[in-house]
């Protein structure tokens, strides 16, 4: 069996996942030095989800993201150089240093924002999808949320509303097993988050989040369904995060060696590379070239972010209103 993707798309998929991984690994290292301000939540380990889903989207399709949003931003086309500057709180950042890690947004590319409020994005994405529907367009909205947000009323309300209004929305529950430190085995009252789909009159699909191709395929079906006017789907992507809830989290709630084992046996980048090279679709040279190019790009983004200026004091008072 060959991949449903051509060479160019495979290179793009690997490159996107590699950018997310290297971006997050680098933020992890730099955060430990104390130079990065605020709260940072890393997406490393979950790359196949954002990438496999966003590869089906165009700029007019919106996504709503979470506090663990760097991966979604990168996959949706937000410039990682601007993102790095944003995380460092610099004037050159995606949001001029006014948002930070938890609020990176770029509406130009259909990225409605990482969101500091757990479950905040569900209602919002219903709105972007509604706007598309009212205008007779076929653009979709994707709401990424975690197992923690899966218990929020906003997500339930949004799923019901999306079904009632038959909106082109894909609800993507990224179940990484922990809401902060609380296990989803404890906090989610059903075996699978996807089981809740039937309560809202939509299909529920479970997919292995370590397998890019599985995510890509399941997302493709859900997005096609939405674009054709058949309404929303709930996709539960089962995956894991390689780091803590936030940077600095000692993760005492996790089993020793849990992450190490996942890295060695299930890692999405490793699986992807193995699969495409064994099939002869890409070569190790292709993979290594991307690794080198991405590493240089991330290194350069950090050098630039460090050197870039802080927002000027006059920026404190701007951008509150369009007019006031």
């Amino acid at each position: 069996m060959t991949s449903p993707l051509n060479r160019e798309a495979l290179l793009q998929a690997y490159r996107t996942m590699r950018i997310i991984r290297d971006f997050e690994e680098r933020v992890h290292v730099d955060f430990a030095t104390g130079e990065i301000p605020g709260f940072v939540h890393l997406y490393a380990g979950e790359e196949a989800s954002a990438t496999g889903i966003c590869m089906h989207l165009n700029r007019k399709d919106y996504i709503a993201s979470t506090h663990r949003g760097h991966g979604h931003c990168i996959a949706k086309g937000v410039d990682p150089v601007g993102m790095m500057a944003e995380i460092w709180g610099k004037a050159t950042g995606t949001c001029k240093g006014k948002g930070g890690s938890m609020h990176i947004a770029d509406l130009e590319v259909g990225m409605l924002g990482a969101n500091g409020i757990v479950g905040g994005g569900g209602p919002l994405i219903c709105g972007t999808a509604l706007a598309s529907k009212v205008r007779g367009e076929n653009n979709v909205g994707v709401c990424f949320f975690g197992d923690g947000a899966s218990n929020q009323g906003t997500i339930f309300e949004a799923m019901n509303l999306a079904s009632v209004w038959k909106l082109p929305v894909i609800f993507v529950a990224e179940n990484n097993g922990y809401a902060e430190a609380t296990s989803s085995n404890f906090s989610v009252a059903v075996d699978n988050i996807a089981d809740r789909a039937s309560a809202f009159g939509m299909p529920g699909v479970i997919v292995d989040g370590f397998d890019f191709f599985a995510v890509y395929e399941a997302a493709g079906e859900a997005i096609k369904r939405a674009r054709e006017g058949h309404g929303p789907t709930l996709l539960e992507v089962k995956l894991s995060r390689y780091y803590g809830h936030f940077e600095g989290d000692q993760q005492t709630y996790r089993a020793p060696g849990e992450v190490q084992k996942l890295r060695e046996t299930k890692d999405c980048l490793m699986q992807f590379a193995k699969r495409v090279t064994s099939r002869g679709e890409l070569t190790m040279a292709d993979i290594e070239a991307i690794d080198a190019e991405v590493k240089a790009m991330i290194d350069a983004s950090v050098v630039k972010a460090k050197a870039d200026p802080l927002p000027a004091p006059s920026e404190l008072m701007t951008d509150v209103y369009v007019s006031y």
Partner: protein
Amino acid sequence: MARKITYQQAINEALDQEMTRDPSVIVMGEDVAGGAGSPGEDDAWGGVLGVTKGLYAKHPGRVMDTPISESGYIGAAVGAACNGLRPVAELMFIDFMGVCFDQIFNQAAKFRYMFGGKAKTPVVIRAMYGAGFRAAAQHSQCLYNMFTHVPGLKVVVPSNPYDAKGLLIQSIRDNDPVIFLEHKALYTMEGDVPAESYIVPFGEAAVVQEGDDVTIVAIGRMVNYAKDAAASLRKKGVSCEIIDPRTTSPLDTDTILESVERTGRLVVVDESNPRCSMASDISGFIAQEAFGALKAPIQMVTAPHVPVPFAASLEDLYIPSPARIEEAVMKVKEYR
């Protein structure tokens, strides 16, 4: 051409005219159609008090009943505003902000700043407020002060039919999130309203009547009570200037300041609870900016620090009355 219509009709007319003018304006909320999909849908409710009646049939596909899910649909209105629509979402009673405040104050209000000026969220959230209907503690609050506190929101409190129409049209055309608050006791108030479309700008207070002795700043329904009090005071030889801010955010502090510097006396009338209210906010501002001009301590006429009671005997005591306003004016007038 102006003719007499009610506050409620003025709001309906503003919505109708803006929906006709701009296809990106949509209306959503609980029962705003009030029977979508039912046999009598064309003559259905049009809002619990009929404010949106008739719009559903007139603007097909753009007046949407919602499930009773305030977070869900208020958030959807916010999201739709980010993607090019100008939604007017009705929250029914302002008290229900408690179940959807996150979508208003953490999402809508924050996007522009948090995203470095790149977002535009032209959403209007309409809701009715105020006591006087024996509706008790969960359907009678004012709460405009809570929205006024939040940077990123604009807050509109029309006191009459003319302002209601012009301010609502401005709210819909405005590019920031607007909380548009309608006092339910004013829905039946009649006034001269031009048939054509017009706007009343934000941040421009109305000097309802000019006067020399005391400045009364009143909000929403209280403007009308202030007028009653002023008419009675006029007979006693006291001349009141009444200022209606019309929007609490932005607040026209210049007009208030100019008036108090002239009269030297201020009474603020606010139907909400007194702590951290518009009354305390305006009083604080004047104490800071016009201390030297004051001839008497500022008086606040507000509801007491209690929930809105049900029984008529108690609710009537709760709401500031023209008599209490008169008393407060006399107190500052006779201070020295």
